């Protein structure tokens, strides 16, 4: 095929137009709307949130995880690949990936930080779920409907916090005791923390909050200026995980 310079340049121009056009589409669909923590407009009175004060957390203690996982029938498969987790500890450097620098306070990089689903106000997992198995409730809890989950794992790819686990194996293989008050999951579905929706709905605190005797966890309504969590947020210097992504987490940290 012969081609003179004129048609070559024409094609180049056409290619560039298509390229730029798709950039515009990317921009429309991109997650980054604004890297602020302004709440999304909703007419709900309630937006549940959590404040985690790591200065009070005992690095040796794992009580919150033990109770949460036992009450929700979360198995321990004993290896990283099959691991299922709702609330867990990970080093600061992994939890706050965008806050590492060489001269950070001694020991902070490796210090275990408590982490769980952020129940984002602008949750990417909800946006990508093809069956609406994951959805955001009016009160801000990002809930999973396990009856609808088809195990496609788009949500796991969408979540920037690694808050979701996939059941590669039957969870009951490694559950010595089943708690009948909450269903387990089955092979082939994704799962994550539900902020104890089953308890919050009947006026109880989440298991982790109730269990912690050091007062690390404060749970409450972010839309109520008089709530304990809002007062604590007012007083303390707090941060969020990866705020620049614009997911607007409902979980806040005191380092």
């Amino acid at each position, binding site marked *: 095929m012969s081609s003179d310079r004129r048609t070559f340049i024409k094609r180049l121009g056409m290619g560039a137009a298509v390229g730029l056009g798709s950039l515009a589409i990317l921009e429309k669909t991109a997650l980054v709307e604004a890297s602020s923590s302004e709440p999304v407009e909703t007419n709900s009175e309630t937006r549940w949130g959590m404040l985690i004060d790591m200065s009070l957390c005992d690095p040796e203690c794992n009580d919150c995880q033990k109770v949460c996982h036992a009450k929700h029938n979360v198995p321990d498969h004993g290896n990283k690949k099959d691991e299922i987790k709702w609330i867990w500890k990970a080093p600061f450097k992994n939890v706050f990936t965008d806050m590492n620098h060489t001269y950070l306070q001694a020991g902070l990089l490796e210090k275990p930080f408590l982490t769980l689903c952020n129940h984002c106000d602008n949750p990417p997992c909800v946006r990508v779920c093809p069956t609406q198995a994951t959805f955001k409730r009016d009160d801000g809890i990002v809930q999973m409907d396990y009856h609808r989950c088809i195990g496609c794992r788009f949500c796991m790819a969408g979540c920037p916090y690694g808050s979701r686990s996939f059941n590669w194996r039957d969870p009951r*293989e490694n559950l010595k*005791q*089943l708690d*009948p008050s*909450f*269903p*387990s999951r089955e092979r082939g579905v994704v799962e994550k923390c539900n902020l104890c*929706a089953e308890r919050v*709905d009947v006026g109880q605190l989440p298991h982790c909050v109730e269990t912690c005797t050091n007062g690390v966890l404060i749970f409450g309504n972010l839309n109520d200026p008089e709530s304990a969590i809002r007062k604590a947020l007012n007083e303390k210097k707090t941060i969020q995980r990866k705020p620049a992504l614009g997911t607007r987490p409902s979980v806040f940290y005191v380092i």
Partner: protein
Amino acid sequence: MYNLKWILPPFLAFLAILTYPLWSGPKGAMPELAKPKGEACVESATWMRANHMQLLDHWREEVVRNQSRVYVNQAGQRFEKSLTKTCLSCHNNKQEFCDRCHNYTSVKPYCFECHVDPKLSEVSHVQ
């Protein structure tokens, strides 16, 4: 008719196979079900027999997606919308109630892959 004796018997056999589901039906008498606790069911027994699957489907939608966890029946009684905590608290013998009838009618609900029969909570991995 031309070659009738060759055509008719296979045709009748074909009809028999085609209509097998209609005339075979469940064999034997309906098995006896374990006696539930309590005086009456969530709704009347005849209604429950015909509609419990729809009721449960409705309940799970309501609980998981609409945050509505209390069911008020025709008589005004209140029940928690829960498979394990409500149905199995009265029908505490799942094997000889739910399962027995489901085996008889050849239905295989998969709910108990996740939902827990309190009787089996000690033994893991039994469905």
